[in-house]
């Protein structure tokens, strides 16, 4: 079984891994030389080059692993907005779906120079999914905050993977999207 992490390259393909390998190899060779036969030269080379190389390798690898873990397990980004801020605009390319934790947002659609309020959404509701069910992947409406809000944002990659993995969830989202499209048409 191969574990895949959505929306990022496999760990083995990370180019910084090669840097870690090279740096660590230099450090290990200098350490081996110094431990095998400690002379002024071998010890000084170990202290001046080997130690920094080994510490750099350890630090860099830890940073890579921590970054990988963060990306792997942090499916949702928490976003906070003040009242009256625009979250996204109609026509923009969609890259995430939002789940409202706190506060309220207004969904507005502009047509023929006129702005229509389509819905006012609150905690427990979601928005931004419709763009993934229409052909061009663009936002069909704008969303702005009506109060200070706290949102959980799920990236496009993770969202589409979720829909693929759990058909029941896809059905629910598709149903909600079609209801909204109908509502927009009225």
């Amino acid at each position: 079984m191969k574990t895949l992490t959505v929306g990022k390259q496999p760990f083995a393909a990370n180019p910084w891994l090669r840097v870690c390998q090279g740096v660590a190899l230099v450090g290990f060779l200098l350490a081996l030389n110094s431990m095998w036969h400690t002379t002024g030269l071998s010890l000084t080379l170990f202290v001046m080059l080997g130690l920094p190389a080994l510490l750099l390798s350890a630090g860099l690898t830890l940073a890579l692993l921590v970054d990988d873990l963060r990306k792997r397990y942090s499916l949702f980004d928490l976003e906070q907005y003040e009242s009256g801020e625009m979250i996204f605009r109609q026509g923009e390319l969609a890259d995430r779906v939002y789940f409202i934790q706190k506060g309220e947002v207004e969904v507005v659609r502009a047509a023929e120079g006129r702005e229509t309020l389509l819905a006012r959404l609150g905690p427990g509701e979601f928005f931004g999914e419709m763009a993934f069910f229409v052909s061009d992947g663009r936002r069909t409406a704008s969303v702005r905050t009506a109060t200070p809000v706290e949102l959980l944002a799920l990236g496009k990659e993770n969202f589409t993977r979720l829909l693929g993995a759990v058909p029941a969830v896809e059905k629910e989202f598709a149903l909600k999207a079609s209801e909204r499209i109908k509502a927009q048409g009225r």
Partner: protein
Amino acid sequence: MSAVVAWLFCFLAPVQPVAPLPYEIDPVLVWLQRLALGSALTGIVLGLFLVLARRRLGETSLKWLCMGQFVLLPLLVVAMGNIVGLQQAKKVEFCQSCHLTMGFFVRDMEDASSQTLAALHYRHRWSPEDQCYACHASYGLFGDVRAKWKGLQDFLKYYSGTYELPVQMHAPYRNGECLKCHERTPKFAESEYHVEGLAEIRSGALGCLDCHGPAHAEQVISENAHGR
């Protein structure tokens, strides 16, 4: 270039300390050295394995391997390498590896008929090991650090060719290096010269070597010219 060549030859250079007796060996140091060597070797082997097989490994296996090879082993080698390196750096053959012209003094020290202070200390086992270090590094950890810091400066001067001839001691020999062992001994206290002149001895106004020298055999200046 000379530094690179010298480094390569470190692998080939024979280890030639005076063979210690079994009960003179510190088992902790021996095991630390084995652990450091083993860790460094494991690191190299694992590194080569990773180069060849990293794309065939699963994500989780690869990350655990990286954690071991690039984090744990390096930290282990750094810790062990420092301890072992500092201990090894106190040995006479280590000092002589850079202080090439000191061979003359080492030979005198090992000469059974020599009456110099270094030879007497060596012969009577007053400083049973690390003979250079015992008298030329100040007491305690600070002394170790200062000696290594000075050594590093000398190393850079030597390989960059920025030293000046004739090579001289960077400072007059301090009485403290003798007093750190001798001052509180009964033999020291028995001497009326020591008791009466203690303040002068401590201050350095009266040098230990003024009465007890020479510390080493005299060496002709041409031997001390580093062949530059």
